[in-house]
């Protein structure tokens, strides 16, 4: 059996590898190439060197969206993980109907971002209108808060499932031994549970950071970047550069921004992975 696997592994790897090359490697390489070109369609691209990057890196709207995105990423990552972990703790203690709760909390994840964005836009605008406050599209502050609420609502359930799996994999004997030694609930949480769910924390914080950074649908549907680009995140900024301007040069600018954006996402998630991995413990 093992020999067969050793012998035939290329056949098993091939479909995925082919799909990966066609669906990821090729478009990625071409995308990087296009960021050095002026083009309308990918067939008519003229190499123009670094001009696109010169524009992308000096575009103030791009850096404004970077600030907005970073702030959003930090706040949403912290909130989502803390809340998801708290709920996971609650639902792993033996309370009645915890399975039903898990299902309910997880459900928002099954709805697509665009739909959620529009539903929350209606909800939040109704609330703001009752409070006699400017609506979402008029005030970037409310747009930001709205996005955070929306993302928390959508993602907490998902992260909660991962934390629950992590918490359930902590050996009962650790907890029992701690209790016998007279550890308080607080000590058990910080000295035993959290160090033991570090792998889950690594996964969850990776997912929330990248999701927060790459957020597009919810941003498009909830605020559309209004007012005047003030609530525009990086992905939407790139999209707008690409499609809402006229003239051939904009596609190249958008492409250059996208490459810069991609590098940022990779760097940030690498740093985060290194940081949380170093805190994982061996069971």
């Amino acid at each position, binding site marked *: 059996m093992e020999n067969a696997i050793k012998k035939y592994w290329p056949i098993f790897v091939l479909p995925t590898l082919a799909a990966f090359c066609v669906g990821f490697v090729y478009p990625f390489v071409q995308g990087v190439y296009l960021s050095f070109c002026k083009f*309308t*369609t*990918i*067939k*008519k691209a003229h190499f123009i060197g670094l001009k696109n990057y010169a524009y992308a890196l000096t575009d103030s709207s791009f850096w404004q969206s970077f600030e907005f995105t970073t702030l959003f990423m930090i706040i949403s990552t912290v909130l989502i993980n803390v809340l998801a972990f708290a709920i996971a703790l609650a639902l792993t203690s033996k309370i009645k109907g915890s399975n039903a709760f898990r299902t309910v909390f*997880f459900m928002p*994840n*099954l*709805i*697509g*971002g*665009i*739909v959620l964005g529009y539903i929350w*836009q*209606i909800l939040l*605008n109704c609330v703001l*209108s009752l409070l*006699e406050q*400017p*609506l*979402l*599209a*008029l*005030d970037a502050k409310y747009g930001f808060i709205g996005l955070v609420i929306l993302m928390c609502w959508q993602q907490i359930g*998902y992260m909660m*499932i*991962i934390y*629950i*799996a*992590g918490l*359930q*994999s902590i*050996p009962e004997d650790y907890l029992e031994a701690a209790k016998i030694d007279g550890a308080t609930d607080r000590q058990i949480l910080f000295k035993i549970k959290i160090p033991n769910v570090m*792998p*889950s924390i690594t*996964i969850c914080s990776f997912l929330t950071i990248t999701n927060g950074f790459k957020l*597009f*649908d919810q941003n498009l549907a909830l605020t*559309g970047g*209004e*007012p*005047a680009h003030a609530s525009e995140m990086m992905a939407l900024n790139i999209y*707008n550069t690409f*499609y*809402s*301007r*006229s*003239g*051939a*040069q904009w596609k190249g600018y958008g492409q250059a921004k996208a490459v810069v954006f991609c590098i940022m996402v990779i760097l940030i998630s690498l740093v985060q992975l290194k940081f949380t991995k170093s805190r994982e413990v061996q*069971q």
Partner: protein
Amino acid sequence: MKKRILAMILASTMVLGLTACGGAASTDTAAAPAATEEAADEAEVADEAEEVEAPAASGEGQVYYLNFKPEADEAWQAIAKSYTDQTGVPVTVVTAASGTYEETLSAEIVKDEAPTLFQVNGPVGLANWADYCYDLNGSSLYNELTSDSFALKDGDAVAGIAYVIESYGLITNTKLLGEAGYTTDDIKSFEDLKKVAEDITARSAELGFSAFTSAGMDGSSDWRFKTHLANLPLYFEYKADGVDSKTEITGSYLDNYKNIWDLYINNATCSPKDLASKTGDDAENEFAEGKSVFFQNGSWEYANLINKGMTDDELAMIPIYVGAGDEANQGLCTGTENYWCVNSEASEEDIQATIDFLTWMVTSAEGTQMLSDTIGVIPFKNAADTTNLFVLNDRAYTAAGKTPVSWNFTTMPSEEWKNGVGSALTAYAAGTGEWDAVVSAFVDEWAAEYALK
């Protein structure tokens, strides 16, 4: 221990699989072209099958139309089939999902089986696609146009052919206007309009309706103001200077723009603060349900209003008066932003097949009937007549010697510019921004956007 880790990995992959379903919306934009791709592939299969049956047709090229108007998709599919049955020339019609035309076209045009026929929305749209536009000068299609002004020129070349002429203005509920004690004859200028609107507002509790529908600034409705209404100050400025486009504007008629905008937002069915979230459907429903007298929209809205139970005898379209120019002789805003372009990269046979197909569309009884019924007035010599009341209104104004306001918004520099004006208008209406911001978005950004070209 290993088992536990495995369980955890399993659990998280399961969850991942689930969210992959939930995350489907994020791939929506990509899915649209993919779907059309499938449709195109299917059609190709069909084409090949036909070619086998009718080998004569294969030498005559084929037509692939990337349609812009989703509402006309069914009619296009039917007419394409009918044309294929009659001539044996395969015609594929694929419709881009609403609001994704530019994206779909970018993806489709680089394929081996690229669209032979697509559309642009005027000179600004043409800037992106000029490389792909076949020169239609002297073609049988071009010769069918009733006027040269319906051709979109790129230098001397005819890059696009306008295929529908539309009008917009203030759609008026004449029954309600009568209840308020006025007729459309009482409104001949901005002063009249203001007087009537403010009188209706003053008595709205007693009358039970408002003057204007909500001027919604949601994405489904904001084009009525940031594009169509903004055309009026632009038109008067161009007219005063005797030009038809400018790279820098002075905004000399922006006070008029402010006046009409103030009138809209202060005499509407809702508070100006709520406009940011009001949609196009909201306005349409308010109007169809008799909650307001005036509704700024165009001839394309006729079918929707009739479907909602309104009748010809309670509808009329009147010009949007802004207190500029010769108001006594002002007509509706009439023009086009839909131009057919033939893909210059397609093979000789396909280009010829496409031109033949379009010529048939605008000359045959079947083709012109379909265009007139589902699209509107077409600027071709053999056009079938229309039953669209607003188009008839436009014709009556022109016959009475009024000058239609031309569509100059096709020269607006970019979507970005329109969005900026829209944001500023919304903020001004809600009181979170000043009118100066609108002026700056209009005038300064115009020059800035043109400077970037």
